[in-house]
């Protein structure tokens, strides 16, 4: 079609198409979150080997702790706490492997180029990744708790289920908000960040108080509970699901919930800023967001 054949009102029409109302923007953001969550929720279940390793390896780790505790004659409540911690660990693993390292994978596969050039914000993409990861991990965590309970006879006494659900929700939200910040850091830092992520795996489990209460870490426990969402989440959930271990909690549950809420807000703001930064820097340096040719 030659330029001569193009109608005079073409530019006005095109400009009008770029005008999106607030409701259009909100619907688009929601659809984008669902769109990005979809591969994580449904796609991953299509790879049986991933499902197998995601469930079996954490369960093996859990079993080793349980057998150790039983051999030392520990209270059965600690067996239940270990199973709960293993379930929580799946969410943290998701943050490290499926959030923090994801943007680099998206860049190297060429997806990041398509995200940047599409009218979708990186925030919607990150939120979709988080929601999809959390839903997928909730399924795995559920199986771990169910399997652990059946295998080892773990029992929980949940007096405040809503509070427990809120703790879990806030914990997952804060962890994923941190995960988005880490995704930006990992993208900027390159492979070194991956190695650091690997190296920090065990220290994070220790500081997160997964298999031993953060109370036993003294000042480091307080520090951890102030910066690592895993720590207040694990500590509060243990208190809520196992009242007989409530005395091992570092802080009262409402305080830990408040800390999680603050963490969620702070990490969300940092995520927003870091996503804006990587897009700005990527467009300026020409390398951060596009696959090397």
């Amino acid at each position, binding site marked *: 079609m*030659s330029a001569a054949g193009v109608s005079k009102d*073409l530019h006005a029409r095109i400009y009008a198409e770029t005008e999106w109302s607030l409701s259009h923007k909100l619907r688009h953001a929601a659809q984008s979150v669902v769109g990005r969550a*979809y*591969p994580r929720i449904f796609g991953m279940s299509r790879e049986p080997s991933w499902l197998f390793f995601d469930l079996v390896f954490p369960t093996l780790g859990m079993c080793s702790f349980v057998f150790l505790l039983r051999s030392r004659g520990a209270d059965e409540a600690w067996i239940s706490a270990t199973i709960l911690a293993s379930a929580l660990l799946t969410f943290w693993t998701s943050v490290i492997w499926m959030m923090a390292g994801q943007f680099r994978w998206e860049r190297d596969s060429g997806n990041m180029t398509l995200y940047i050039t599409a009218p979708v914000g990186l925030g919607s993409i990150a939120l979709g990744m988080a929601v999809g990861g959390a839903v997928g991990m909730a399924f795995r965590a559920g199986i771990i708790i169910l399997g652990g309970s059946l295998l080892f006879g773990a029992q929980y006494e949940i007096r405040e289920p809503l509070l427990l659900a809120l703790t879990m929700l806030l914990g997952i939200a804060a962890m994923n908000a941190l995960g988005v910040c880490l995704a930006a850091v990992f993208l900027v830092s390159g492979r070194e960040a991956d190695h650091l992520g690997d190296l920090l795996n065990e220290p994070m489990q220790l500081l997160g108080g997964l298999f031993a209460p953060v109370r036993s870490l003294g000042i480091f426990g307080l520090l951890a509970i102030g910066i690592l969402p895993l720590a207040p989440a694990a500590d509060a959930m243990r208190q809520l699901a196992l009242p007989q271990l409530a005395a091992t909690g570092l802080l009262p549950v409402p305080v830990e919930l408040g800390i999680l809420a603050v963490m969620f807000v702070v990490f969300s703001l940092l995520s927003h800023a870091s996503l804006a930064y990587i897009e700005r820097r990527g467009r300026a340096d020409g390398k951060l967001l596009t696959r090397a040719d």
Partner: protein
Amino acid sequence: MAISTPAASAAAVEVSGVGRVFQAKGGSVTALHNIDLRIEPGELFGLLGPNGAGKSTLIKILSTLLLPSSGSASIFGLDVVGDTARVRRIMNLVAGGDFSGYGLLTAREQLAMFAQFYGMPYAEGMRRVDAQIEAFGITDIRDRKISALSTGQRQKLNFARSFLNEPWMLFLDEPTIGLDVSAARDVRERVRAFQAEQPGRTVLLTTHYMAEADEMCDRIAIVDHGRILAQGTPTELKRMVQKETLFIVGVDELPAAVSLGTLRELPGVISVVVRDADGADGNGVGSPVTRLAIALREDAALGGVISALAAAGAHLREISKSEPTLEEVFVQLVGRGISESDSEQAL
């Protein structure tokens, strides 16, 4: 900040003095030098040049992936730096060798995912997904996982994705690289059909396939070392290396009543030479053919030549217009062939 509606006379693409410098370990590298370019709505414009010429850098700037170091660029009057969000609502991009997406999704699911990202209502998105699957003839792979698709199938899927938001501006960065002849032909046909469906849809294509540029593009810019060396229609570019029009006219035998000298004196004729003096029959008809290479000032002068030959009793066997190829244009402008340029890049 209020953004005014772009002027009705705005081009589809307006590039003014755009430069781009990359910082590298050994110092800075200038990928683009003060590029000026204007592409009209509805055009299929080609950027032709070797690897490293700056084609992809320009596309990245126009598609909002990269900021220019200097100058300005706009898409349908929308500034690619200041109006980024709006630009992204009316454009799309396909890159060659692109293996984006998620291998565990099916082809249809992947398109549906991108439809969500492009902002159309869900039902409309799914309607377009199915329409593109149909249009690209990939219904047989719609429920197959992306990881199981061939390169050609994946690239067709990429094209289908890029058409989902019905972009006014489509960037194609070496889109047929790695495709077999049949798949490349299919996607070229779809691009043409896509443009024909809606007047004003504009395509910017980068390629180093001369035949592809010649066949597809309304206008072409030849780019090398970050500079536009020449631009125009394929015919205009070819005229740069061959000023006159050259026709090959085949006759059974040159009649005695007409000599080469007579033909040379006809209006508009520059020169006439016998090209095929041995009379070998290039058409396989069985009779010898004498081929005359006739250089004319303009196409219209051919009528006089044909009339003169016919009046002298010559039996006309063939007429063909001889044009230089874009490769010859490229060699003349750049000083080397495009494949040589790519080899240099590889070194």
